[in-house]
């Protein structure tokens, strides 16, 4: 940003900002948070790459066809999709300054998110019970790492959601809380985008293979 500003009396341009102009608090939060999400995206890309490389190495162990129940995955996907739209409603009611409705939609979002995690953990428990542990084959290691990292993100999102509900309950929809809710909105929708990759490349293509 070397813009010629504040030309001095001699007429020579100065190639820096003489005074840094003040920014309101949270001025750059959404761009900064977006850049964090992009770096998180790279983490998931690496895990997808690992799964892409190792996904067919079953080591004579169970294959996706033996393990995955697509009905369960479809239910799980709809949980996450529903939680995305209810978070959207929370943002809309937040814009209209309706605290009670915002809290209600956040609660519903949290319940859908918890249902997603619950179903995923049930699936994991079922697989481990059948002997399909992460140690069994490279495919299962890559599977548990990728899907587990996503699940961990959603769990962190749930903790964040509860924290923000307490914040809104105690301090109302103040500027800082609006900003935080907007960041969580980006985080939550981003996790849904990652899940599109998971259900397509891990579950659907796995069963197809």
């Amino acid at each position: 940003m070397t813009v010629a500003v504040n030309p001095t009396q001699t007429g020579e341009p100065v190639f820096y900002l003489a005074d840094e102009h003040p920014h309101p608090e949270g001025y750059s939060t959404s761009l900064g948070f977006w850049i964090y999400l992009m770096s998180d995206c790279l983490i998931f890309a690496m895990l997808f790459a690992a799964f892409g490389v190792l996904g067919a190495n079953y080591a004579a162990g169970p294959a996706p066809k033996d393990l995955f129940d697509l009905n369960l995955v479809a239910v799980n996907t709809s949980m996450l999709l529903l939680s995305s739209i209810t978070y959207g409603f929370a943002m809309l009611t937040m814009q209209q300054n309706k605290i009670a409705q915002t809290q209600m939609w956040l609660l519903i979002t949290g319940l859908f998110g918890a249902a997603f995690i619950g179903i995923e953990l049930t699936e994991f428990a079922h697989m481990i019970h059948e002997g399909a542990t992460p140690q069994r084959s490279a495919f299962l290691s890559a599977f548990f790492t990728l899907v587990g990292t996503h699940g961990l993100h959603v769990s962190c999102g749930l903790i964040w959601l509860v924290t923000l509900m307490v914040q809104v309950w105690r301090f109302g929809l103040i500027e800082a809380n609006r900003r935080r809710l907007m960041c969580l909105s980006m985080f939550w929708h981003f996790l849904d985008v990652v899940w599109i990759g998971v259900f397509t490349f891990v579950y659907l293509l796995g069963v197809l293979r």
Partner: protein
Amino acid sequence: MSTDTRAAHADGHHHDDGHAHSTFSGYMLGFVLSVALTAIPFWLVMSGTLPSKQITALVIMAFAVVQIVVHMIYFLHMSPKSENGWSMMALIFTIVMVVIALSGSLWVMNHLNSNMMPIHEMTGMK
């Protein structure tokens, strides 16, 4: 940063610039599209309607790409204008990185896999 954004920030109400157009109809349109774009791939795989697995795989990957774009536009409110285009710059950079990393890994590792000496030949070398 241009002067008009600074002016927009000065009054403190445009905290959500670049996220301004979140409307009920936008969210609902995005939701309906994503439900369709999720349900069709699941149905294709579970019913096996398409004749070959390759075609099914290509079709569901195409659906995934479209659904990611739908989520970006309607849920994450991406537009070339958000944050003066910096969000889009970060996104394009990330996509370039992801494409290089993913295609490179798959390509190189696939070559390594196919050039690996089979185990029975290795045991014969003892």
